[in-house]
Structure formats: C-alpha cells, structure tokens
C-alpha cells in the first residue's frame, strides 16, 4: 500500500509507504514507486538508480523476514533519504549480517534467487550514508542517504 502523505516547502518531497511482509507477489512495488517519484522530481539518473537499488534490497528483506514495514522517502535540495522501519524478528548480530554471503534465508527464498547474503552489502555500497539498528523481537530500522551531486 502506498500513501504519499505530504509535500512540504522545505522538502521537494516527503511521502510514506507500507511494505507487506511475506508477499513476494507485490515485492518491488514500493521501490518502483520511489523510483518513479524521483524521476518525476527530475532527480539525476545515477541518484535514482542508487535509490532504486537500496530501496529494492530493503523491500526484499522486509518481504522475506518481517511482518510489515513503514517506509519514508524524503527528498530535499541536498539529498534523497529512505527510511525503512520494520516489525520483525530483528537482527541479533548486525556485524555478521553485514558480511557478504551471510544469510538466514530458507530454501524457498533461496530458490527464488533471494537470500544470497548480498542485500545489506548492496545497500551499504550504493548509499552514501547507511545506518542500521535492530532490536531482536521488535524489528530493524534502516536509514539510507544518497547525496545529490
């Protein structure tokens, strides 16, 4: 479900979205919307492509592991910021989860080509700033910032 909430004077755009966990049929809808919004705002192509990658990877993590997530997209003159706050199992060891190839994905997820342990690495590599916090049993909070040229 996608709910653009507001366009403010300070920001070029501020909107929120909801990702439904467990539904692979709708996986990619939020990141596709984010990409579409950024393109309409005239954000440069390389920034849009980075935002598409980080938002897609975050979306797939929510679909794979969490119950749901709230996503906020904020665009101001200097940067694009995407925050993803999920209700899910949380990550016990973030340092381990950030290692390429480390994954807790089950067989079904892996057969679809997900769960290769590359998602968080892609997010880190394609964000200029990446912050991740997590609480076991509650959820994970990602904040990705991409600076405009």
């Amino acid at each position, binding site marked *: 479900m996608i709910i653009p909430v507001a366009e403010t004077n300070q920001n070029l755009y501020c909107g929120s979205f909801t990702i439904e966990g467990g539904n*692979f*049929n709708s*996986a*990619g*809808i939020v*990141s*596709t919307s984010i*990409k579409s919004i950024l393109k309409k705002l005239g954000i440069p*192509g390389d920034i849009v*492509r980075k935002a*598409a*990658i980080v938002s*897609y*990877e975050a979306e*797939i993590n929510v679909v794979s592991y969490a119950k749901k997530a709230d996503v906020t997209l904020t665009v101001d003159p200097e940067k694009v910021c995407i925050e993803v706050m999920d209700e899910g199992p949380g990550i016990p060891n973030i340092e381990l989860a950030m290692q390429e190839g480390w994954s807790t994905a089950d067989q079904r997820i892996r057969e*679809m*080509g*997900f769960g*290769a342990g*590359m*998602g968080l*690495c*892609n997010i880190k*590599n*394609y964000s200029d700033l990446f912050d991740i916090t997590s609480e076991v049993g509650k959820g994970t909070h990602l904040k990705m910032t991409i600076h405009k040229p």
Partner: protein
Amino acid sequence: MKIEKIVQALGLEVKCAKDWRDREGTGGYTGDLLSDVMGNSKEGYIWITRQVHQNIVAVASLKEHAGIILINSSEPTRDTLEKAEAEKIPIMVSDLPAFEISGKIYNLLTTAS
C-alpha cells in the same frame, strides 16, 4: 545492438513486450541471484537467467534492462509475462544453456561496433 537483431541472430522466442524489440542492448549480465544482478548489472543490459518468477521483472525494470533472456527453454509464469508486458520488458527464451547464450551475445555485441 537492437534487441530485434539479437532475436533474429540467435533464434530467440519473444514471449512478451514485442513492441519494445527496437530497444538497444548495450551489454549483458548472466545470473540467477537477484541481488547480484541488482548490484552488478547496468542500464541497457540484457539479463540472462533461469529464474522465471515475476520478481525478475521488478529487477529488470528498476535496473532499466533492455530485456530478459530465459535459458534452457524455460517457460516464464503467466504472472511474469503479464507484469513484463506492463513494464515493457521483452522476455525472450533460448533453448541454449547460460554459458552458450552468454557467449553468443558477447560475440554479437563486441563484434558489432
């Protein structure tokens, strides 16, 4: 090189989005891990894969791929075809394995210029 020329040269079967065969394929990427493709492929690439489910369309669309080639005569699901049609991503099928179709596309693209 235009998708249509690659289709003709390699005898690919175009399953959907046939109106978009005039798109330029600028390179290729072969892989079945979606995060690998997200992280390493580029805009305009032709993606070669054995994955047939609808999530490949989201990846190809977000990465602005020129098209997707399914290997070993793999059949895309109906959901995949419907989504690809809507997203204007041509899906093509080859009876060759990934190694062979990748080599042929590499040769086509590198000898074309």
